[in-house]
């Protein structure tokens, strides 16, 4: 579970930062695995902010992704977004997504970013780089914590 906190940047100037403890999950191969899962709040077409407790902070993801049912809570008709295909490391597998601009709240900051809402629910919520992680000084600390400082 994320543990919000305050921190300092490396030059000693106080900057707002949020620290999330990695969450432990079963890996199936080498016992438990720790993942950098962070809490984000997202606003879609309604005025309601919806908090996702465990979005994967993924520097390898170009774009942020949400599973379909979460998208359906945020957007009346997900399929009205621009359709697109995204690909991960799995050969031949492609994922149909619909791109929407959504507002995020993280570390007390609000910002808008393109989000790929997946046609499938079998996809984790991912907080990727474009207009997401790239806005932060993101530090992954010894496989234990992720620290996000607004730059």
């Amino acid at each position, binding site marked *: *579970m994320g543990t919000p906190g305050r921190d300092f940047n490396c030059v000693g100037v106080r900057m707002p930062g949020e620290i999330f403890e990695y969450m432990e*999950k*079963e*890996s*199936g*191969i080498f016992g438990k*695995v720790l*993942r950098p899962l962070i*809490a984000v709040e997202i606003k879609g077409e309604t005025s309601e902010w*919806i*908090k*996702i*407790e*465990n979005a*994967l902070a993924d520097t390898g993801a170009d774009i942020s992704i949400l*599973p379909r*049912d*979460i998208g*359906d*809570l945020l957007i009346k008709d997900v399929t009205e977004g621009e359709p697109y295909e995204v690909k*991960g*490391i*799995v050969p031949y597998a492609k994922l149909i997504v619909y791109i929407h601009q959504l507002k995020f709240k993280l570390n007390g900051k609000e910002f808008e970013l393109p989000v790929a809402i997946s046609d499938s*629910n*079998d996809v*984790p*919520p991912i907080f990727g780089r474009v207009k997401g992680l790239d806005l932060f000084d993101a530090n992954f600390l010894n496989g234990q914590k992720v620290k996000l400082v607004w730059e």
Partner: protein
Amino acid sequence: MVDTTFREKMYEYIVLADGKPVLEGRNLKEMWKQAKEKYPNKKLSIRWEPPAGILIA
């Protein structure tokens, strides 16, 4: 030997009220509606849970 039984399992959603899990399942829309009715004054949130035993790459 790699355990492949996880392939038969899938994700599920957990809805939390003030940080405590109150509903779990796969019909998030219905769970969210129920949670809003049952916990109108609590802060609701969502967790997406993969089946135990998968690696994400």
